[in-house]
Each structure stands twice: as structure tokens, then as C-alpha cells.
């Protein structure tokens, strides 16, 4: 496996870069859209019930199906793959954001309002920072689905490490297949580690255990 990677450095680096670009862009879009939609859910109860159930059902749509269905409309390559991955990763971010913004206790919110905070200030200074750990957890779950799902992008010509898995499969070359699979796992683990770190940072105020 390592031998294959070393002998095909340039191709491997290009595929890994494609995989990363696709995953990171999809995750970033999930962050923007998910937090925005989650905030709307928090502000409007009716919107909340509609959006969270739509979000939950989005999650069960197989990405490969989304990509193939979109082919006539969006063609092949980066964009339809991105679209499918955003659909795949959106739901945990939306649902966690909507729930997390409500997680500050009523006493805390009352104290904030009594301290002459405007609603906008309560949101930015109190609700959002207190929601951060749960939102980060949502992004972590979403990031893991996206990084694994990005291997499917190879089916519609968007490249990525899935290409190694596919060619490994078709050529019965276990080393190529493993190069793709193990690298994908490494990316997933990095995402996991990154968001665990962010989580720890965002909860550092909790239980610092006295002197």
C-alpha cells in the first residue's frame, strides 16, 4: 500500500487534495446553512417542526442516489458531488443548532435580560456561546459522514480517494484499494480529532474543579 502511494505520489496527492477540498467545502456549507436554518428553527416554532423533520429525512437519502438523480440536471464532477454531500451532512448541524440555542436555562436568560441585554445581545453573548459545544458535536458527526461519503464522488467523476477504491476493486489490487480506504479513514480521524479539540476548548469553563 505504501509502495503504491510512493510510486504514484503525484496522482495520490491530487486525489487526496480533491477529497479534502470536496469534504471541507461541503462541511463549511453545512456549517453556514445548518447554523442559519437552525437559528430560524429556534426563532420560529412552526418552521422548526417542518425543517427538523425535513432535515431528518434528508439524512436517509443515499448520497449515491442523489448524485445519480442529479446527473441529468447538474452533470458530473465537483458540483453535484458537493450538493449530495451537503444534503448528507446537513441534518445533524440543523438539529443540534436548533436544540442547542434553547439549552441555556431560563434563569440565565432572565438574568441576561435583567442585565439590560437586548435580544440580539442575549443571542450573541449568551445563547450562541452556550450552544457552541452542541453545534460543534453536530459538525463532527456531519464531517464524519461527509468524509466517508466523499468516496462516492468517484462514481460521478469528481475524483477523490474513492477513485483508488474503485480502481482497486476493478483491478483486484488490494494495495490500491487500501491506499484509498486507509487514507479516507485517516481524514475521518483527523476531522474527529479536530472537532473533539474544538469541543474541549468550547467547554473549558465547565468543572475546572476548584483550586
Amino acid at each position, binding site marked *: 500500500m505504501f509502495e503504491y502511494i510512493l510510486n504514484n505520489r503525484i496522482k495520490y496527492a491530487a486525489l487526496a487534495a480533491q477529497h479534502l477540498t470536496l469534504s471541507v467545502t461541503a462541511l463549511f456549507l453545512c456549517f453556514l446553512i445548518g447554523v442559519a436554518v437552525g437559528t430560524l428553527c429556534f426563532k420560529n416554532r412552526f418552521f422548526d417542526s417542518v425543517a427538523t423533520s425535513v432535515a431528518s429525512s434528508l439524512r436517509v437519502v443515499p448520497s449515491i442516489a442523489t448524485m445519480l438523480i442529479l446527473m441529468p440536471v447538474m452533470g458530473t464532477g465537483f458540483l453535484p458531488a458537493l450538493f449530495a454531500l451537503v444534503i448528507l451532512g446537513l441534518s445533524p448541524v440543523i438539529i443540534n443548532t436548533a436544540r442547542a440555542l434553547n439549552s441555556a*436555562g431560563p*434563569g*440565565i436568560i*432572565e*438574568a*441576561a*435580560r*435583567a*442585565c*439590560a*441585554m*437586548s435580544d440580539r*445581545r442575549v443571542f450573541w*453573548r*449568551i445563547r450562541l*456561546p*452556550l450552544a457552541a459545544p452542541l453545534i460543534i458535536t453536530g459538525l463532527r458527526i456531519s464531517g464524519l459522514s461527509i468524509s466517508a461519503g466523499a468516496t462516492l464522488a468517484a462514481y460521478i467523476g469528481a475524483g477523490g480517494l474513492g477513485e483508488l477504491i474503485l480502481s482497486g476493486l476493478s483491478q483486484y489490487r488490494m494495495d490500491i484499494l487500501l491506499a484509498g480506504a486507509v487514507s479516507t479513514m485517516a481524514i475521518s480521524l483527523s476531522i474527529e480529532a479536530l472537532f473533539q479539540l474544538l469541543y474541549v476548548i468550547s467547554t473549558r*469553563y*465547565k*468543572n*475546572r*474543579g*476548584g*483550586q
Partner: protein
Amino acid sequence: MSVPDGALVVLMGASGSGKTTLLKMVNRLIQPSSGRISFYGEDTAGLDVIELRKKIGYVLQSAALFPHMTVRGNIATVPEILGWNAERIRARTSELLELMGLPDDFAGRYPSQLSGGQQQRVGIARAIAGSPKVLLMDEPFGALDAITRARLQDDLLRIHRADRSTILFVTHDLDEAFRLGDRVAVMNEGELIRYGTPAELIKAPDSDYAKKLLGFLSLEAIRRAEERGGVCGRPSDGTVHDSVSG
């Protein structure tokens, strides 16, 4: 019911008697369904709610500190909204920590690192940081053990004596009411049934409910109220007396 400037008025009554509701109507956390509340001569309903709250400090039973902010951040909440500069906020924080009997290095701690009593001290410091005209306290010592509670009661009296801020204090604890209050308002089922100095209440309870309630008052509290009754022979125009012997 009118609260004289500089007085410590206790709202007392059983659970569900409406004392907390009354308190929250003062800073408009709850809108009154009828009647009006005047704040220094102006109907609060006509005032900008943020401006009103800048002048009213609020302490809850559970200190309700912002858990993600340090002690300094919590205390700085209102000063930041008032637009103070960093230097002034830092000076005020140190001043308040000292006033509340907390070491200066507590400023960088998070609420989870403090005991219940320390949290409530920070809660009070946060409420008075912007030097509000009126301080509302909703059973602030209710969740504390007896020793900590007594200590904080002493501190509150000390602070009140020093700065003569107007305080509205809600409690269901009779002894606490008579210990702290220049005046005590007794509430029952949403109505104010008696309002006067502790000594007046003991001499003339005026209603069956007030009489029944006073039956639960400890002898110690009665003795203290009668002692104070001599000192605070308060003029009826509501001007503030200048000495309370605790």
C-alpha cells in the same frame, strides 16, 4: 404601595402569593395586566425597557451567573452595556470583589469553580456593578446554608447602609424579612395585605392572615424589630431615616 428612596423593603408571603411576580413587574420581565408602576415618578410602561433595566439591578435565587464567562466577565455585563472603558471596568470589578469579600484573583475564575455562597456574592456584584438606583433581589439567599445565609445577610445590610441604595427583597422567610427590612410588605394570593415597618407589623398586624403569619416569627426577630422600632420612628412622608441598628 410606595418604596422610599434608599429603603430596604422586603416583600414577604407564601409561595404563590405573587411577590416574585410583583418584583419582575418592576423591571418588566413580566408585563402588568393592570395597574401601573412608577419609577422615580415615571410610568415604567412608557420607558425604554433597556434604559429602565440599566438602572435596576436584579439578583436571582440561583445566582444564574453566565457559566461561560469568568467572574470578571459576569460583573462587567452591565458596565459594558453602559459603555465604560476597560480601565474603569477593571477598577469597578476589583472594588466589587473587595466589597463582597472575595479575593481579587477570583476575577479570572469561572462560576463552576465557586461555591454556592461565592456565586451569589458574584451575582450581587454583577447586579450592582452599574450602580443601579434600585436593586431587586428574588430570594437571593434561599438556596444557601444557614451560616452562609446569615453572613450574606450581614453583608447586604452593611452594603445597604454604606450606599443607601433602594432595595426590594423577596423572601418567604419571616425571620429574614424582619431582620433585613426597613419595611415589610406582606402579600397573600396576589394582594398586598400589609405594608409597614417590622415594629408596626408586630404591634398591629391588622388582618387575620398577618396575625397568623406573625405567629411563626421567632422571639429573637420580634425582640430585634422592637429594638429597631425605637430607632426608626420613620416620618410618614417617606423620607429616609439615616440609621438602622441591626
